[in-house]
């Protein structure tokens, strides 16, 4: 079983169709599946519903798919820092389902875990609760949120072994793990592919069962949204 593909385009072969739902990993521009987003853009697939915490920034990350008008709907928690998004949204050309960040992460995990719905306190008494079932448990109100089962997951990892076991690095893990499990099929891009046996079995973040197709995406020119530093005191 060969999981390694030679390009993002090849790895997405046969998986894309208009109107599909895609779950994408990343937080801001940290840990986003750049190569796969580029290949989705190049494919021209359209009317996409994308579940992703953010929508990229202008012409970075998912911002690229917004620019080419391939996205019909975003399921996101925060979409600031993106002028093209703002334009399309205000013009009514783009639908947005605002979902609290934790609810979005749990909806992706739930969808991947065979849980079609769960109750949460998050959003009770707010706009987020509108149209949702409210149920009381032990005297407190909770709202019903739905699991998200995407047609495809695209995620970015740090290292993968040849069998598809994957590890993330620092805060680039974020939504990549739950997004990966949410998809009927998951395609991952990584910075390095190592031989089977190189990764610690106790330290795998995403077991191979979730990674159906894999590409080496390096080299990456990782973008930083807000570079903040401190000064070294003079010796």
């Amino acid at each position: 079983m060969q999981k390694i593909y030679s390009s993002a385009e090849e790895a997405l072969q046969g998986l894309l169709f208009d109107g599909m739902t895609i779950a994408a990993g990343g937080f801001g521009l940290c840990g986003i599946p750049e190569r796969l987003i580029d290949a989705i853009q190049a494919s021209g697939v359209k009317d996409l519903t994308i579940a992703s915490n953010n929508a990229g920034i202008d012409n970075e990350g998912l911002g690229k798919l917004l620019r080419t008008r391939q996205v019909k709907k975003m399921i996101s928690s925060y979409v600031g820092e993106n002028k093209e998004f703002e334009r399309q949204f205000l013009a009514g050309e783009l639908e947005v389902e605002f979902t609290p960040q934790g609810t979005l992460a749990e909806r992706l995990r739930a969808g991947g875990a065979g849980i079609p719905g769960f109750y949460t306190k998050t959003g009770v008494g707010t706009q987020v609760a509108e149209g949702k079932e409210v149920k009381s448990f032990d005297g407190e109100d909770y709202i019903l949120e739905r699991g998200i089962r995407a047609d495809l997951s695209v995620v970015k990892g740090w290292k993968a072994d040849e069998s598809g076991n994957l590890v993330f690095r620092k805060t680039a893990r974020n939504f990549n793990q739950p997004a990966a499990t949410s998809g009927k099929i998951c395609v991952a891009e990584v910075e390095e592919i190592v031989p089977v046996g190189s990764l610690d079995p106790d330290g795998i973040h995403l077991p191979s069962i979730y990674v159906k197709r894999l590409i080496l995406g390096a080299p990456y020119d990782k973008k930083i949204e807000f570079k903040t530093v401190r000064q070294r005191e003079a010796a």
Partner: protein
Amino acid sequence: MATAAETKGWTRDQMAARAAKELRDGYYVNLGIGIPTLVANNIPGGMTVTLQSENGMLGIGPFPYEDQVDPDLINAGKQTISELPSSSYFDSAASFAMIRGGHIDLTVLGAMEVSEKGDIANWMIPGKMIKGMGGAMDLVAGVKKIIVVMEHNAKSGDPKFIPECTLPLTGKNVVDMIITDLAVFHRPDHDSPFKLIELAPGVTAEEVREKTTANYVE
């Protein structure tokens, strides 16, 4: 150099320092962006306080030195940060399991409005571009103690601690303490009214009353 006694009310740093007095040894804390971030600089010496970042980290370190900047290491405000020896990383679902499950002891957040019933509005102004709530709704719903730090009045002079929020809510009946540049309000539980418990230097109870429309106990 001006001292606190010469200044009327609290500066942003002083508001953060006041919020920091609510920290206890061993607390796990999530700090919002803006003034709340400044709380990190005011953790009392000898106290272990661990900062959580909802994008998947426990144990936030200071901003990195220029040569340590790492694009894979950011906080929830997407700023570059550094790690500590005690840090750990996890995914977003695990991060919010921590938050929603009541494992975080304290969060300090900014707000546009807080109602006398403890409702908070801090994510959206209708008619303006809507950016989304991010993790704010999860934090106010899940964290054990919610402290709001905000200017007492908006730039227009309008009170922000008011009888009923006019903006869309982030959470209903969730706020435990309000720290403004003028005063501190607190309630022991979510069935009690807020009580004015502290005044900033040079500020009187009358002045606070005049500048507030919310009902509170003095």
